[in-house]
């Protein structure tokens, strides 16, 4: 499939815009001098991922990302930034390593490996945007995947108790 054929579909133009915004926001997350800006750029990247999930028809996953990631996890990050008094722009030297090029080289190698390995394995396989409804997902989650579901809920309970025990002041 050539690029001209690919860009001819309306969905792909939407995808291209969303992914450009996502990649820009992700780059800002890792290079921003201001910690709060990095956390807010993560919101933009996660909102882009929710839009990609909507394109793929996984609407329940998309709204879960909005609720849990954007609603809870990023707020938790902002509290963490506030409590640990992370530098918010005044002390830029403390935020990054000075050796950026080896890290950039490793990241480029990871991208090259992942991109070539996955694109060579699944060339041009079509993806359907058929909607996986919340009803369908709930049915499957409580029948076929009920044991993993219980395990995950136990992990969440352990994390809850562990978080409280670790962050408590009186011990």
């Amino acid at each position, binding site marked *: 499939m050539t690029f001209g054929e690919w860009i001819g579909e309306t969905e792909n133009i939407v995808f291209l815009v969303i992914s450009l915004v996502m990649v820009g926001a992700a780059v800002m997350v890792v290079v921003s001098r201001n910690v709060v800006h990095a956390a807010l750029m993560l919101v933009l990247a996660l909102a882009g991922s929710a839009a990609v999930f909507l*394109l*793929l028809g996984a609407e329940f996953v998309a709204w879960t990302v909005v609720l849990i990631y954007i609603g809870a996890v990023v707020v*938790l990050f902002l509290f963490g930034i506030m409590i640990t008094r992370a530098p918010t722009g005044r002390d830029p030297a403390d935020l990054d390593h000075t050796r950026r090029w080896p890290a950039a080289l490793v990241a480029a190698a990871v991208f090259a490996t992942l991109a070539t390995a996955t694109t060579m394995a699944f060339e041009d396989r079509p993806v359907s945007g058929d909607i996986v409804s919340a009803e369908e997902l709930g049915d499957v989650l409580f029948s076929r995947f009920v044991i993993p579901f219980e395990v995950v809920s136990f992990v969440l309970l352990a994390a809850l108790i562990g978080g409280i025990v670790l962050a408590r002041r009186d011990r």
Partner: protein
Amino acid sequence: MIVNQFLILAALLFSIGVYGVLVRRNAVLVLLSIELMLTAVNINLVAFGAMISDAFASGAVFALFVIAVAAAEVGIGLAIVLLIFRNRSSANVDELDLMKW
């Protein structure tokens, strides 16, 4: 839509996250970069789920599991960062060389 476009987007996001984990010194920012990597994994899972479109909706279900585990990881991770900050008044990962021989 073909599956390659989602795979390349996910690979790009994952490698940006790798760069962030390697280059950032503040522990909260390292956790932010890890969230980027987990988002890339979720995009891959949902894209493969939409590609095979099986009866169990496995891609979406496993993406939900990844989201739940990521939430647990952030909660515990930030509690540990908070504890380290309280003990050493710094959240800099370079200074945490207590277990380095």
